[in-house]
């Protein structure tokens, strides 16, 4: 059992620990394999260029979504809950991009007996560009 973050210890304005992955076919092909997501523009540079991305193949939005979930889970540990995650896909995940999930606490509340913490989140690339703005709602345990 691992409790990493208690509700009482989180304040509005806090930032969650940054979480990064450098992505290429090693990540994308594994994700295609588990999600049965064999879309040509995720697998083949020529197909990626035909789809309008001059750099070639590009990464899955769903994998960036997984990175958001994983970053949150790694921060809060197993005893907390992820209640909601939302995001918009704004920029393409190019090959060899280093994607970094970031988040900032914007609200704390108790709703329906749950200790809720709301964050604004994003997935930034190595150039500091926003690729995936969004939000998350977590349910954290009490210290007492």
């Amino acid at each position: 059992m691992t409790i990493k973050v208690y509700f009482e210890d989180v304040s509005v304005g806090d930032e969650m620990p940054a979480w990064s992955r450098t992505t290429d076919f090693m990540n994308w092909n594994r994700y295609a394999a588990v999600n049965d997501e064999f879309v040509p523009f995720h697998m083949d540079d020529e197909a990626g260029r035909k789809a309008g991305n001059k750099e070639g193949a590009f990464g899955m939005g769903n994998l960036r979504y997984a990175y958001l979930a994983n970053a949150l889970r790694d921060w809060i540990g197993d005893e907390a809950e992820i209640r909601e995650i939302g995001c918009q896909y704004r920029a393409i995940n190019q090959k060899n991009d280093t994607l970094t999930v970031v988040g900032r606490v914007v609200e704390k509340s108790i709703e329906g007996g749950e200790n809720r913490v709301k964050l604004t989140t994003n997935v930034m690339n190595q150039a500091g560009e926003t690729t995936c703005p969004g939000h998350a709602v977590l349910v954290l345990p009490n210290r007492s």
Partner: protein
Amino acid sequence: MATGVDTLISPAMEEVKGKWGEARVSPPIAASDIRKWAIATYWPETPPPVYWDEDYARTTRWGGIVAPPDFNPFAWAVRRVAPAAMAQPAGGVRLTNMNGGQTDTYGVPMRPGDVITARSRLKDFNERQGRFGLMLYTFTENEWTNQKGEFVRRRIATSIRY
């Protein structure tokens, strides 16, 4: 790109708007499916043991292995069903389809042995002129429950076609 058409909203889209489609039922979730999902999405790092180590997971509040929230039990369907949101737009033109994003709300976690039932509907749509001409935004609602009837996940997904 949609050129020479006044609207991409078809009568078929109006017809299915708000109506739940036929339910789909997943195969039973295997612990190994969850393990592989976690390895793929954490690659190249080791995923948390609650996703693959039953002995450890038993010590957590969950009492056993659970799936990551984004786990898809419907991957590798033998028969594929087109979701309601893919009702053909008007104009008869071939459109580019982009994943615009999603908001998921989660209930109970998925576990090995669970069988998930999904239903979906075209919740809403609109269109507007954008940088690629006429752009159609569709919002699909997808709701998952488990074999006990417990709420698992609701997704509102945005699809952008132009």
